Every structure is written in structure tokens, then in C-alpha cells.
């Protein structure tokens, strides 16, 4: 059973179509990225998945059923813009919001203590939210998102405004959730952010799906015909290589259409060169996006 199944949803505001016939599914135990530029319709899509707004048409099922009050307890949602009750303390905020997810007070506090400890926020447990820094507030909100052990976690731009240490912390916690079999949806306009995390992605532009599938496969489709090489010694002529570009710290070899990277590697090893790095060049998602959107726009 997929964690989320979205079928042909459409949403428009005041004659502007924000989400246009979008379909995808998210499996349990995977990190799924929804990526696209600002204003592509990512947040609207997520809000429809969360039943915060209703689609004009189409259907969303979460964990095999249409979202009901009971099934909302199985969701964890970190919205794009973040805020908590400024006047409440950290622990009061966590317990109240956890209680709305069906947790009772004592178990929420016990779980909160563990998560605060894990994130290094335990000393701030009794502080008011308004006394925390922005980054700290974000960590608290992440704790609120996952405290009730949800089956599906949706993180909208989770790393925006976070320092590198906390970004790594959150990435690690997200990876842990995946290994526990939870489904995680990441939404971001920072496309490179998801490359190291996501198993599958949905790339959207102007409310429409432009790319959808396994991240590794997608990258291989858009693989350019070149390899990246770091080496020691003298690189002479290599048969099958049409161009050589010296980049910072490495050399990019552009192959002719007939030679595979595997053949090039064999030939390089044959020359006795010391090879420190050999990599089939795949473009970053940014470039893929520009290629796809550029192509669509030209159609």
C-alpha cells in the first residue's frame, strides 16, 4: 500500500490554475522529493494532501484511505513558514500540539524529553518560544512534526534558514525515519538539497509534473556523454575522447558517441596512469530542470 496516492488533482485560485492535473504516489520507507522553483505549486499540492484545502477535482488517498480526522494522527507536517505560540514554553507547545495528534500528556513529555536530548535542546525545555533563536524554533517544530511517530512525514522547505550543523542533524533524523519504514516527503526549491537524500522525485513547474521517478534513473537519462577524471601523471591522447576540459581539480573528458565510459576507464588504466577519481558525469538537478523546462517552453 503506498503511503500517498495522488490522482489528477487540480486547484485554481481566481482563474489561475495553481496545480494542474498532478498524479504521483509515495511509497512507505522512502524519501520522496517534490521539487520545483518558487511558485510551482509545491505547497498547494502538500496542502491538498494534508486536507487543509480541497482540490477542485481529483483525489488524494493517504495510507490507503481518504484523509479523516483519525488518519490525521498518522501524519506529521512541517509547514514552509514556521511559527509556534510565542508565549508558551517549549514543552507546553510540544505537549499541546502532540495532544492534537492523539498523544496523552505524560507520554508526549517523555518522548519530547528524548527528542530534545537528541537535538541538544533539553536545556531550553522551559524557555518561552519567543526566547529561542529562529533555528532553535525550527528544531522544536521538527520535533512537533515527528513526536507522535507518524507514518507519513511531510517537510516543506525543512532546511531553510538552518545552519549546517542543524541541517545535518535533521537530515540524519529524516534518514532514521526512513529506515523505520516511514514515508517522508521533502519539498524544496533548492534542488541540490534533495540529491543526497531522495529515493524518488517529482519535479513540477507551473503546477504540472515535468519529471517523475527514481532519482538515479532520472539522472542517468540526463547523463551527458562525458566522464570526470582526477589523476597523477601525464594524460596523453585517449582514443574515443573528442574534447578535454580542464576544470578545478579535475579534467572533463567528452566522449565520442561510440565509446562507453567503461572502455575509456580500461584504456586509461592501460596507460599506467594513477587514477584518483573516475566518475560518469551526471548533471545536477538544477541543470536537468533547466533542460526539461527549457525544452517544454520551446515546444
Amino acid at each position: 500500500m503506498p503511503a500517498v496516492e495522488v490522482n489528477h488533482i487540480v486547484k485554481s485560485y481566481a482563474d489561475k490554475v495553481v496545480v494542474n492535473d498532478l498524479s504521483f504516489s509515495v511509497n512507505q520507507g522512502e524519501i520522496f522529493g517534490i521539487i520545483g522553483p518558487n511558485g510551482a505549486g509545491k505547497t498547494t499540492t502538500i496542502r491538498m494532501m494534508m486536507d487543509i484545502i480541497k482540490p477542485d477535482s481529483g483525489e488524494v488517498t493517504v495510507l490507503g484511505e481518504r484523509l479523516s480526522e483519525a488518519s490525521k494522527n498518522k501524519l506529521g507536517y512541517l509547514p514552509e513558514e514556521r511559527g509556534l505560540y510565542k508565549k508558551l514554553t517549549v514543552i507546553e507547545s510540544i505537549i499541546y500540539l502532540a495532544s492534537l495528534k492523539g498523544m496523552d500528556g505524560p507520554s508526549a513529555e517523555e518522548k519530547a524529553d528524548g527528542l530534545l536530548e537528541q537535538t541538544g535542546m533539553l536545556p531550553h525545555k522551559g524557555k518561552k518560544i519567543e526566547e529561542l533563536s529562529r533555528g532553535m524554533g525550527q528544531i522544536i517544530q521538527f520535533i512537533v512534526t515527528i513526536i507522535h511517530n507518524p507514518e507519513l512525514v511531510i517537510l516543506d522547505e525543512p532546511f531553510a534558514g538552518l545552519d549546517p550543523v542543524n541541517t545535518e542533524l535533521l537530515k540524519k533524523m529524516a534518514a532514521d525515519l526512513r529506515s523505520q519504514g516511514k514515508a517522508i516527503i521533502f519539498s524544496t526549491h533548492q534542488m541540490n538539497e534533495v540529491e543526497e537524500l531522495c529515493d524518488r522525485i517529482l519535479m513540477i513547474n507551473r503546477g504540472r509534473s515535468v519529471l517523475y521517478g527514481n532519482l538515479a534513473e532520472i539522472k542517468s537519462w540526463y547523463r551527458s556523454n562525458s566522464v570526470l577524471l582526477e589523476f597523477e601523471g601525464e594524460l596523453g591522447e585517449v582514443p574515443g575522447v573528442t574534447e578535454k576540459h580542464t576544470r578545478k581539480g579535475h579534467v572533463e573528458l567528452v566522449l565520442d558517441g561510440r565509446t562507453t565510459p567503461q572502455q575509456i576507464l580500461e584504456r586509461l588504466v592501460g596507460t599506467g596512469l594513477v587514477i584518483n577519481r573516475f566518475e560518469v558525469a551526471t548533471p545536477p538537478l538544477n541543470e536537468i530542470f533547466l533542460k526539461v523546462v527549457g525544452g517544454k517552453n520551446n515546444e
Partner: protein
Amino acid sequence: MNKTLLILRHEFLHTIKRKGFIIMTLIVPLVGLLAIGVLQLVSGIAGPAAEITTIGYVDEPGGFQQFTTQGQIELVRFDTPDEATQALVNGDIKEYFVISSSYQETGVINRYTLEKQLETPPGTSAAIKKFLTSNLLAGKVPPATIDLIEAPLNLVTTRLAPTGAVAPEQGGYGNFIIPGVFSLLLMLSIIFSSTYLLQGLGDEKENRLIEVLLSSVSVRQLLTGKVLGIGAAGLAQVAVWVISTPLLLNLASSTFGGFISTVQLPANFLALAVVYFILGYLLFAVISAGIGAISATSREGQQFIAIFTMPLISPLWFSSLLMLFPDNPIWAVLTILPITAPVEVMIRLGVSEIPAWQLVVSIAVMVLSIIGILLITIRVFRTYLLMYGKRPRLGEVMRSLRSG
């Protein structure tokens, strides 16, 4: 626990812990206490300690020699205005007046004083008037008649029940005071409670917490919990005020004993006060929630809500007209109009009787309005709560209502 109850409890506790709420709850009894203290102080000063004032007069036509002691005022006769002026300058007298020789024809009395005054103090003019009347009538009519001429009317009204027996509820200001004060408190409490609701929604909208809440609960649960939680806090506030009233009245009775004994509660007052507080609050709560949904910030929402608080307050502006013309049909209209009804009913209860049919229609119209506005609000809420930073135009709201 049910999620609606969780939100209710959270909102109730959150509201009663607010500084503004605590101050407002305590300030009403405190202001009452202060007012009683000040009145006691003032009446203490103005009481027996008052000194005897000496006023001079010049009697040109003659015949004004008697009755020179009028309460705390002593009248001293002078032969000429110059002598009187001299005495005034020397400080022997506080002021003087001249009964001119043409007084019998014109009635003109000239008064001279060193003080700057808006008008003659009522005590002084009453004393002069009584002095003149008594002297004019002396010897012509019996002294008892003179007293009657000075105060010919001491009206005592008794209200009879339709059976001809003395009615238990006598009307008058004693009957008006509690509904009058209570209508003011009711209005304050309704305005404050709905402001808290509006502010809470505005804040949650501004800091986007609303999305987290709506990913856990439905719009219906969120609105119901908030409206009831804040309403319960408002009711607690009114309860504190109501409980403190008899205590304050007891304290005040030493000062205004005579008046306090006439204070009575109109029939059905408490029941109607509770009903109209609840209905009035619910009406304003659903209006506030709707406004909270379409306004960009909580500040903007508070400007919008003023459009509705004006009519709520308006019966207080017209309360003096109500006292003069209690039978005018306009009061029936204000009683039935849901937005003016809570305050209007409270004031009318103190002034006259409200026909039962008007109360029934009024309550029915309020209940229907609340349900109608609630349905509209839930529709608008979902659509516009997530539109941050911009307010939809009226046309867009109407369109979204139609499309649902």
C-alpha cells in the same frame, strides 16, 4: 480527550492567563471600589463640616427683614450698595445682592461676588429664593402654606399589577441601575472576547501555526474549540463581575443607603442576561472568525470588527431617549435586530417591560443569524485562511461563497 475539548481547554487557559484579560477582569470591581471610596470621601467633606456662609443684601424697597438664616447661609442687611461692596472687599461677606426698588415689577435681583463662576451655586440661589418668597408671603398666608408653595410636589408613584394589587416590581432608577450597568459590562465582555478570538486567529494565521493545527484537526473542530474556549473565559469574567456586585453594593450602602434599598433586579433578568451574553458572544465570535479569515493581519481584522461593534454599542447612546419614550416602536426593532439585541434587551428590561413575543422573535433571529454566519464563515475560512498577506476583494469572497 476529544480534540475539540483539547482546543477549548487550551484556549480557555491561554485567555485567562493573558495580562489584558486579568487586568480587565479585576479593573471593573476595582473601579467600582474606587468610585465608592471617592464618593464617601467627597460626601464626608461636604457633610457636617460645612461652614456658615455670610451673604450681604441691600433692601431698597424695604420689608425684607425676616428669615435671614437659610440653612448654612446667614443673610446680613446693608443700607447702601457701597457699604456692602466695602464689606465684600474686606472679606466680611462672601457676596451680596441688591433688591432694587423696582423689584416688585421686574423681579430683578443684582448679585455681586469676587469669585469667577459658571453660574450661581444652587445652594445660594435656593437660599435667596426662599428668603425672598418667605418675606413676600409673611403674614399673608400661614407658614405651612409658605412651605408648600416652596415645594409643591412630592410625587410618590406606585405601580399596580393588573389584579389591582401593588406590583412586586416598582420600576424607577432603582430598577434601571443593575441592567444599565450590566449592559455596559456585557458589551465590554462581548467586545473583549471576540477581540481575543480575532487576535488569536490573526496570530495563528500570521505565524502559520494554523497549518499545523489544520493538519491535526478539522476547521469545524478548530473553530468550535476556539469559540467555546474563549467564550468560557468571557463568561468567567462576567461571573467575577456579577459576584463582586453585591459585595460592592453592600459597601456602598453606608453612603447611599436610601437609594440602594430601592435597587432591585427586574424579573427574568439573570436568565435573560445569561442567554443574551451567550448569544451575543456567539454572534460576535462567528463574525470575528469570518473576519479573521479574510483579513491579512490581526490588526486589520480589529479595524473591520469595529463596523460591528458600533451597532452593538448603539443602544447605550439612545438609552436616554428610551427612558423618555419607552413605547416607541424603534425599540422593538433594536430588540429584534441581532447585532443590537444583547445591549438593547438589557437596557429595556430596566426601563419598561418587553413583550414576550419580542423576546421570542429576538432570540430566534439571533440563533438563526449565528447558524447562518457560522456556515458562511466555515466556507470562507478554508479558502482564505491560507491566503497570507493579501485580502480578497468582496467580489472574490462572494464568488467563493457561491462556488463553495
